[in-house]
């Protein structure tokens, strides 16, 4: 065996290199899947020509197109903030992947406070959106940014609370620990509580991704991609397109980890153990991503006020109740049920 010793810095660089190659590739694949799956859900074909076979190269072609586009910064824009905003959105979207356990040992960094880190880092993007909207000196962009801020804050709460339910049930904030705590995935056991938390998480996740039916902040038909109205070329890719897809995969991976048992088999049954954990993880993540794709063309969009009411009047009280229920379960459930 080759004996390689690396310093901490070198290890960090390798890890970052892996993340920075895997995430864009995953994003391209998922973006293509989004095109095709959504098309077929709507009884269309989607892209068919780029690349020759079922339009597999559509996103490469799109990327090329964006590279060739002129990079425009509006005269009235606050140039420094305007150019920094895509970075502020893009970096957190990548950093989320640091703590997601693909397998028991296949993880960039198993933080003890992994769940906390995850929730914290995914909220940072909101600041980037606000920066983009404010610096653009554009009414649509400002409206979009404020809507995004309002919505991301509103839906952050149910996500945090449903994640808190999981943390209470698992008794740890480490994501590997959470997965290991799920002999039966939380969505199935404890009955009701896990499922409700999963549904709340999914709904809030769609809202957090500002995807239809919760797409008021970007609302292309009304405020033309909201905070990103003034962005063009690669800036648009890095501020809007790439983070959206990357975040979608991340949320899928988080949902799979927290509720579907991550790299564990979906049910504790002997033969299923033969399948490696990475496959389980990828299947579950794919299912979550498919769920997001499935929701998008199915449901009609909500109005801004309906959207806020749904968060504050339904999801947050419900998840608060769930926290209570989970606490009760942890304290009073019979020992045989919990394990």
């Amino acid at each position, binding site marked *: 065996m080759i004996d390689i010793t690396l310093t901490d810095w070198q290890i960090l660089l390798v890890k970052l290199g892996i993340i920075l190659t895997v995430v864009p590739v995953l994003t391209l694949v998922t973006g293509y899947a989004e095109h095709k799956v959504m098309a077929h859900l709507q009884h*269309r*074909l989607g892209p068919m020509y780029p690349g020759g076979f079922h339009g597999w190269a559509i996103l490469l072609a799109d990327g090329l197109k964006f590279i060739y586009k002129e990079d425009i910064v509006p005269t009235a824009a606050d140039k420094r903030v305007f150019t920094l905003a895509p970075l502020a959105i893009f970096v957190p979207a990548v950093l989320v992947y640091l703590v997601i356990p693909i397998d028991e040992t296949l993880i960039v960094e198993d933080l003890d406070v992994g769940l906390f880190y995850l929730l914290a880092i995914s909220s940072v993007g909101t600041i980037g959106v606000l920066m983009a909207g404010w610096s653009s000196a554009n009414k649509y962009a400002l409206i979009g940014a404020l809507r995004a801020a309002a919505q991301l804050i509103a839906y952050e709460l149910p996500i945090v609370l449903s994640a808190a339910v999981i943390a209470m049930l698992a008794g740890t904030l480490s994501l590997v620990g959470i997965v290991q705590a799920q002999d039966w995935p939380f969505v199935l056991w404890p009955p009701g509580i896990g499922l409700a938390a999963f549904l709340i998480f999914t709904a809030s996740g769609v809202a957090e991704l500002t995807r239809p039916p919760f797409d008021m902040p970007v609302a292309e038909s009304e405020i033309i991609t909201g905070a990103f109205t003034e962005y063009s070329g690669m800036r648009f890719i890095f501020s809007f397109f790439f983070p959206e897809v990357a975040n979608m995969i991340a949320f899928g991976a988080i949902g799979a980890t927290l509720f579907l048992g991550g790299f564990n088999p979906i049910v504790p049954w002997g033969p299923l153990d033969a399948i490696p954990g990475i496959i389980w993880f990828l299947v579950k993540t794919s299912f979550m991503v498919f769920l997001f794709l*499935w929701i998008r063309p199915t449901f009609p969009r909500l109005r801004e006020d309906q959207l806020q009411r749904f968060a504050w009047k339904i999801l947050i009280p419900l998840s608060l109740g769930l926290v209570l229920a989970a606490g009760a379960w942890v304290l009073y459930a019979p020992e045989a049920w919990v394990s």
Partner: protein
Amino acid sequence: MATTEKRLGTARKLGFGVGLLKGMAVTLKHLFKHNTVIQYPDEKQDLGPRTRGVIALKEENCTVCMLCARECPDWCIYIDSHKETLPPKREGGRPRKRNVLDRFAIDYALCMYCGICVEVCPYDALFWSREFEYAEYDIRELTHEKEKLSDWMSTVLPPPSLDEGAEQPGVPARTAAAPAERPVAAAPSPAAPARGATTPAAPPTLAPEAAEQVDADRLPPPPQSRAQTQATERTAEAAAGADLTEAGEPTPSQVAAGEEAGPAAAQAPAPEGARDHKVEAEEPVPNVEVPHETPHPQPLAPEADPEAVYQSVLEEQKAKGSSPQVAEARARVARAKAERGIHRGPTPVATSKVVPSAPTKAEQEEASPEPTASGTATSEAQEPEPAPVAPTPQEEAKAETPPATEAPGDETPDQVFERVLAEERAKGSSDAVAQGRAKAARFKAERAMRDGG
């Protein structure tokens, strides 16, 4: 309805979110359904036979009636045409006028494909074609001129076959007798004398043949019968023009010809030479059967041999000093009239009078007691310009006696002017008329001098 309510009821019982799940089920079903999208440039849909793609023009059918252009809600049809004069079909006939299509264009940038033009066209000159791939880079190219519109004709589908048991197009449900006789009855009046002349003279020996003929026509009409009807129509006209001489006095030979042609007429159209006789033999038949269907007035019997009339008029005209062309034309008219049995008035002669237009008041007063041949000349009405056909006897008289304006050659134009003016005033013409005529006379005199000198 009941089931829907029931379903809604169960949904309510099951609680929140069932509608969402149903919606997701719908989209999921479509994910696995066979996709029916047609990838257009690669695959092409078989469009329906009545697809409104492009409008094709069958140029030879267009009569420039302008109905399509007028009905078009978008005013996107442009038609230009001119009138063309064709020589008369037969000697002595009037020259025919015909519309010639110069331009027929449809601006497909304006067209809204309502198809009203296709529906309104009475002569089947416009058709729908299924072709739809005629996009252009320049909007002006979307105006298709008649050449392009005619090219589209090759893409027009044949009309769909009729439903089982449908009425055949173009043949009314009534017996075939009606279509068989109608064209003859409706034929232009020249046909009438032929019929009228022959009817009384038809010998009784023809009757059985005629009855047979009618029976043949009553049979369910095969297409041949229609064609024959048309042929009959055509030959009727031709015969009316060319063979009226014979028609006037049916001879035994003609009757024999009729007997010959009678049975043959039930089959395919007879050869060109036999046609005229056949028609004469046939034509009495409808008259015998349906006497009330002959609305045309029975013309007078020809009073003289047309050829004799022609010769006499020609000589008369030449004697009067008309130019050879005029004389011949008038003689021809007289002959045609004789053929049709129209009573002939005295023919006019070319006059060299200086006063060509309306007669003066004095003249009219003079003329009023005498009845005119045409019966139109009254004391009040302006008498028309001396028509070549039926001039008044008064004008005849005038023409024969050289008019006063026929001036001696030594007069100067100014003298002519003064003289004519004085004459006109004496006649009681109004000042303006007198001046005008005097001026005209002077001009003529001037020209005569110039030509002479």
